[in-house]
């Protein structure tokens, strides 16, 4: 019954999406307020029905309704409630429904909160969103219906892949989708602007919060995915250049570029057609991310639901949307008002350089990911592209970009002078040099590359601190007030750039100083590893809700004090997973993963990961910076006309 309600809701949502696509586009063309209002209503209703469909599917999972085929294939009664719920998006169909859910919610949000937009622009944005929504709802209903029934219903379902039964995985896909799908709003804004033939500072001001709203969850999602891979896959890596990881990295790189170029467009009216192109490409890469996982074009750990027919559908969607948008771009963009020119030494040119690097990085990842496909088509040879490719291409491009990050916020808009810039950069440069020398004493010339990377991280951190720091130093006479009046946007910028510094610190530390060992340990045995003594105190079998585990307890004595670690090797009905024991400290982690029994003991693999926690701390700090920026009212208040009455007049001091 519930499944049928969900099915109907989905079909109604599809029809509403068609209305949402047609009515406002026609309405905006004819300047018909009734049609445009109809578009807004359709978006809100569509969101409501997709939410209903999603809730229906989630209910089927939670209630273990095995007469629904999808539920029978991805959940069983032994699975804890939280993971039964999370299994809703653990399959191809369910995750596509989640995709559509988020798309519909974003569409509804534009209809609900976009009241300060130009009415025709809002209508066109909603229309484009409706087109995308209709395409994906059609895809869902016609090729991947989540509500198919099974007759007779099996008494018990098949368990969700145990690797996916983890808190990290519960939130990882929704966050990534919030990001991917969020870029659809930027895409809709870009297409709407091309249809209107008008791209200006006001447009950039409207689109920036939406880009930020997509970028924040995407950053969190990528960071969380990396964290999950670290502790769940049981071999201590944090990034593998797997095609699906790359699929999330490409929109992130372009989305970051878009955030910055939209800033230039908002402040200086420059780079209009470039910003539009970035908005289109960012969403296209998000679609390609979806395509990659589902089409079976590449093999990957993540590749579930390999089915060429679905691949053809998604390829069609990518082709139609990106193709139409780019054709529109080729037709309309040359006629757009060209941006204002700027001096070679100015914040605009700093950001242009940033965009150049970020776009090139995205292209490098794109080539690395898809080269195997193209080489095979051309020569019939199969090749694999692995970490060495990225070490030779990604790193040399990323390092200058990281060095440049500090320059941007220190430059003034329009034009700047070298002596003034040098004076502003003196403090961060001194800090970086001091940290570099200190680390050189500790690490020695053997680790010169890591030392340089840590100095670069210090440069980033000091540069980030200098952004509000300089402001506060200038207003030190009344420090309290100058801190209070610092716009959240400035704090957010500083936090995000500092996050990048921490990320680099973590990468440098773990790349240069990682150690590992493998040995068989008997209960009671003690070993020394990376400055710690590790004792296996007990080894026993324990029962979990839907697994049996061999549990090893360790007592560790080391520079971080004495502590206990518990590692498990879990046997589920269908497969095994490793629950690594990790002791986290700011200076480094001890990572212990237990394997199979051997000679009355157990195989133990240990890693020392110096500074690794800063990788994820940095990622989350970047996202936090984004959140702080998003809280800036200057961003949320779209049209400048509305702002005056909301600007509190600063009280005259004393």
């Amino acid at each position, binding site marked *: 019954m519930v499944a049928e309600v969900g099915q109907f809701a989905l079909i109604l949502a599809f029809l509403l999406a068609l209305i949402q696509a047609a009515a406002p586009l026609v309405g905006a063309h004819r300047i018909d307020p009734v049609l445009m209002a109809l578009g807004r209503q359709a978006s809100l209703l569509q969101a409501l029905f997709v939410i209903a469909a999603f809730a229906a599917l989630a209910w089927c999972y939670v209630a273990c309704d095995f007469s629904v085929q999808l539920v029978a294939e991805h959940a069983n009664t032994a699975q804890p409630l939280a993971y039964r719920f999370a299994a809703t998006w653990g399959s191809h169909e369910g995750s596509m429904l989640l995709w559509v859910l988020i798309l519909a919610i974003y569409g509804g949000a534009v209809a609900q909160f976009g009241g300060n937009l130009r009415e025709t622009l809002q209508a066109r944005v909603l229309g484009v969103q409706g087109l995308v929504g209709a395409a994906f709802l059609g895809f869902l209903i016609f090729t991947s219906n989540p509500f198919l029934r099974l007759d007779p219903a099996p008494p018990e379902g098949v368990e969700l892949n145990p690797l996916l039964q983890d808190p990290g995985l519960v939130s990882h896909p929704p966050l990534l989708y919030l990001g991917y799908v969020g870029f659809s709003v930027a895409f809709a804004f870009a297409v709407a602007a091309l249809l209107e033939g008008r791209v200006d500072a006001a447009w950039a001001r409207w689109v920036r919060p939406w880009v930020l709203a997509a970028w924040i969850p995407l950053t969190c999602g990528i960071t969380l995915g990396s964290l999950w891979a670290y502790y769940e896959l049981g071999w201590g890596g944090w990034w593998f250049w797997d095609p699906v990881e790359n699929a999330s990295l490409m929109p992130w790189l372009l989305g970051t570029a878009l955030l910055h170029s939209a800033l230039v467009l908002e402040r200086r009216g420059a780079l209009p057609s470039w910003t539009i192109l970035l908005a289109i490409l960012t969403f296209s890469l998000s679609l390609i991310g979806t395509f990659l996982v589902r089409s079976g074009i590449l093999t990957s750990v993540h590749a579930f639901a390999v089915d060429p027919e679905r691949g053809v559908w998604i390829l069609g969607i*990518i082709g139609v949307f990106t193709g139409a948008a780019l054709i529109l771009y*080729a037709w309309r963009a040359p006629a757009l008002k060209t941006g204002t020119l700027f001096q070679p030494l100015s914040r605009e040119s700093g950001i242009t350089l940033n965009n150049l690097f970020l776009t090139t990085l995205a292209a490098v990842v794109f080539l690395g990911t898809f080269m195997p496909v193209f080489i095979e088509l051309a020569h019939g040879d199969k090749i694999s592209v692995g970490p060495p490719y990225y070490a030779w291409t990604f790193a040399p491009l990323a390092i200058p970009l990281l060095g440049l990050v500090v320059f941007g916020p220190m430059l003034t808009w329009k034009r700047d002078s070298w002596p003034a810039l040098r004076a502003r950069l003196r403090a961060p440069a001194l800090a970086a040099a001091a940290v570099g020398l200190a680390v050189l004493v500790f690490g020695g010339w053997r680790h010169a590359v890591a030392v340089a990377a840590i100095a670069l991280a210090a440069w980033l951190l000091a540069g980030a601190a200098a952004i509000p720091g300089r402001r506060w130093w200038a207003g030190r006479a009344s420090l309290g007030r100058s801190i209070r009046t610092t716009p959240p946007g400035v704090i957010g910028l500083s936090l995000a750039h500092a996050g990048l510094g921490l990320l680099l610190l973590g990468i440098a530390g773990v790349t240069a100083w990682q150690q590992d060992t493998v040995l068989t340990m008997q209960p009671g045995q003690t070993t020394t590893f990376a400055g710690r003594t590790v004792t296996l105190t007990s080894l026993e079998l324990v029962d979990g809700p839907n697994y049996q585990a061999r549990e090893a307890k360790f007592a560790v004595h080391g520079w971080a004090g004495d502590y206990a670690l518990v590692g498990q090797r879990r046997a589920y009905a269908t497969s095994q997973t490793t629950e690594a024991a990790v002791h986290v400290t700011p200076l480094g982690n001890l990572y212990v993963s237990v394997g199979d029994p051997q000679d009355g003991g157990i195989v133990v693999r240990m890693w020392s990961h110096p500074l690794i926690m800063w990788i994820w701390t940095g990622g989350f700090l970047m996202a936090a910076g984004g959140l702080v920026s998003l809280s800036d009212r200057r961003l949320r208040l779209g049209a400048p006309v509305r702002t005056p009455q909301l600007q509190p007049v600063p009280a005259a001091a004393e």
Partner: protein
Amino acid sequence: MKRLLFITPVALLLVVLVGFGLGLRRDPSVLPSMLIGKPLPTFVLPSVRAGDGGLSSQALGGRPALLNVFASTCGPCLIEHPLLMRLKDEGVMVAGIDWKEPAAQGAAWLAQHGDPYVLAGNDPDGRAGIDLGVSGTPETFVLDRHGTVRFRVVGAITPEVWSQTVEPLLARLERES
């Protein structure tokens, strides 16, 4: 001239789409190999596990066998690993090549996760892998009793690939003389 610049993105998209479209027609997990129907190339590999004799192509005759290429850094290898463990228990001849890494790493991986291989060899520089046309791990060759390559699976042997393709093929090869 300027217009040409704005058309470039569309042109690039077209190339990518055509590539993807053609790419879709191939299936990356069950690609035919140049070796199918041909005898296994000759190789003699040193051991992965301390104290065993390694793996040579001569040793893979007499009965149908699976030749599985793996590495300790390979995530998807863990997906097919439970299946290989089960096959070992069922008495299927499974041989392994530890590809492009020092033997110690492969041995550690086997010790940690369990060792499904009757015979296993180490191919640290990927030399034998080149003769076999290995593109990455995991990859599995199905051999008949004469040591002829009959099928190749690129990527993990998923339950579907196993039950629909490899299992029936192995059963047929068992019956062949």
